[in-house]
């Protein structure tokens, strides 16, 4: 009996350890492949130049247009999503504390929105664009991506806010704070690491998504200088280059992937640093 228990314990420990490390290994493998394939094509021209004539046939140039376009769209959309998502998440957790059913209904709808494939957001943004007589542009891309990532922002932040002990909420009210003061001075502060995670996830999803910007942001070889100009994006740049029959161009797709990964890595490290730095005073 005891022997079986010990064996069983051993088996599950090994199994779960194996699963955990294989996930990490897969991640490492993905990054490795991208680096190996893209390394040869990666040079400063890739990062600092826009595509010149013949770039897509192996000619001179880089993907600066897509880097700038992606960063603009992801930042713009994340900013809008913060303005929508932060108050919304605080509202759900502070103003609606009394209303458990309403809270759960809202969460259910947000989860549904989260689950909608991004091509559907793309189609919706496209319809919206036509309705307002807009062309594919940076602005249309930003708005569409903002719609795509807002539910992620709200739900991720909300998930953390909802774990804040009720006692802290009550302590703040007992001191005479209004609900708004409780939301912004206490709950936001206590939920700050969650807020950072929310921003990070939203940004990552926004910068990496191809389907939602395909019809709304368009594609161009120029760096956009205006909100109503079309904008290129890294995921689409990868897509176009990967589809090329020329091997050098396909390598550039991998180089573009490296660039995208590095951008996300930088944002993620900055966010972690900020979250650490500003949550020292938080209740553990």
């Amino acid at each position, binding site marked *: 009996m005891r022997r079986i228990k010990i064996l069983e314990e051993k088996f599950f420990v090994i199994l779960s350890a194996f699963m955990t490390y294989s996930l990490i290994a897969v991640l490492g493998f993905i990054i490795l492949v991208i680096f190996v394939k893209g390394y040869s094509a990666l040079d400063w021209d890739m990062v600092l130049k826009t595509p010149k004539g013949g770039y897509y046939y192996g000619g001179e140039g880089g993907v600066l247009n897509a880097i700038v376009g992606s960063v603009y769209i992801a930042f713009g959309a994340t900013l809008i999503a913060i303005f929508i998502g932060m108050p919304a998440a605080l509202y759900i957790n502070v103003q609606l*504390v*009394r*209303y*458990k059913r309403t809270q759960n209904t809202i969460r259910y709808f947000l989860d549904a929105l989260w689950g909608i494939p991004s091509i559907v957001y793309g189609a919706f943004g496209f319809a919206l664009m036509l309705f307002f007589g807009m062309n594919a542009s940076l602005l249309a891309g930003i708005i569409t991506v903002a719609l795509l990532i807002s539910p992620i922002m709200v739900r991720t932040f909300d998930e953390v806010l909802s774990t804040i*002990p*009720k*006692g*802290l*909420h*009550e*302590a*703040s*009210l*007992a*001191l*005479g*704070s*209004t609900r708004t*003061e409780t939301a912004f*001075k*206490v709950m936001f*502060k*206590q939920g700050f690491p969650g807020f950072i995670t929310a921003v990070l996830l939203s940004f990552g999803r926004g910068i990496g998504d191809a389907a939602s910007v395909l019809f709304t942001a368009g594609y161009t070889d120029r760096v956009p200088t205006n909100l109503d100009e079309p904008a290129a994006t890294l995921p689409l740049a990868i897509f176009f280059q990967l589809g090329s029959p020329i091997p050098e161009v396909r390598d550039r797709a991998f180089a573009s992937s490296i660039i995208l990964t590095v951008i996300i890595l930088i944002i993620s490290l900055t966010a972690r640093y900020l979250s650490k730095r500003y*949550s*020292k*005073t*938080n*209740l*553990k």
Partner: protein
Amino acid sequence: MFLTETETVSRQSDKLTVKNEVQLPILRVQHLNVFAAQNHILKDVNLEIPRNKVTVLLGPSGCGKTTLLKCINKLTDLYRELRVSGRIFIESEDILHTSTNIPSIRQKMGLLSQRPFPLPVSIYKNVSYGLKLKGIRDKKLIDFSVEKHLREVGLWEEVKHRLNAPATSLSIGQQQRLCLARGLAVKPSIILADEPTSALDPISSKIIENLFRDLKKHYTIILVTHVLRQAIRLADHVIFMYDGEIIEQGSPEELFGNPQTDKLRAYLVDGN
């Protein structure tokens, strides 16, 4: 029967000094009923809380002590399932039927909960928080007040060199005193303490008890405790609850020395 000679004497002298003032109770609760979906939590509760005294609320777990405190500072608002009816007068204002805004009612009371919940800011800002809410901006005045209230709870010497450190870096006992200081800074007249020492070590508990003994000169204290000895040490007035009802209330001599009901007698013997 639990009181020592000297405690009885000191209580007598307490009574003498206040005899000349008209002692209206600071808080009166009348026909307070609280219903939840399934149960009747507080059943026609009537009580009076004497001013500048320690009133101890006793009763077995689940009898409604916390709920009563939450009614008094209107934290029941956070729970939609709780329906509250009756009257609660603070001074002469019925806080259940008033147009005064809720935050300013809550500022008449400081709350100390079972476990300390420091705000996620520095030690200094925990104490200044309530002052800022009241619109006080004068840095000197805030500094003064922070020091005064930290001294009041005996924390000043321990933290004066690290006022900007996170409040969570304090020990649990220190955090509880910080929460008390933070509450006192908004100038309440009543302190609601819900088992404030149950998460604390014996020494911190003693400190809190001693604080209460001093603070009652200026504040009315309502203390929920499960520690009978603590009740005996601190109480000027005792309320015994059982299953949502007030069974007995009166002086500690009456309740501890001469309990009238079997329920209280049983509670005094085995604590529930």
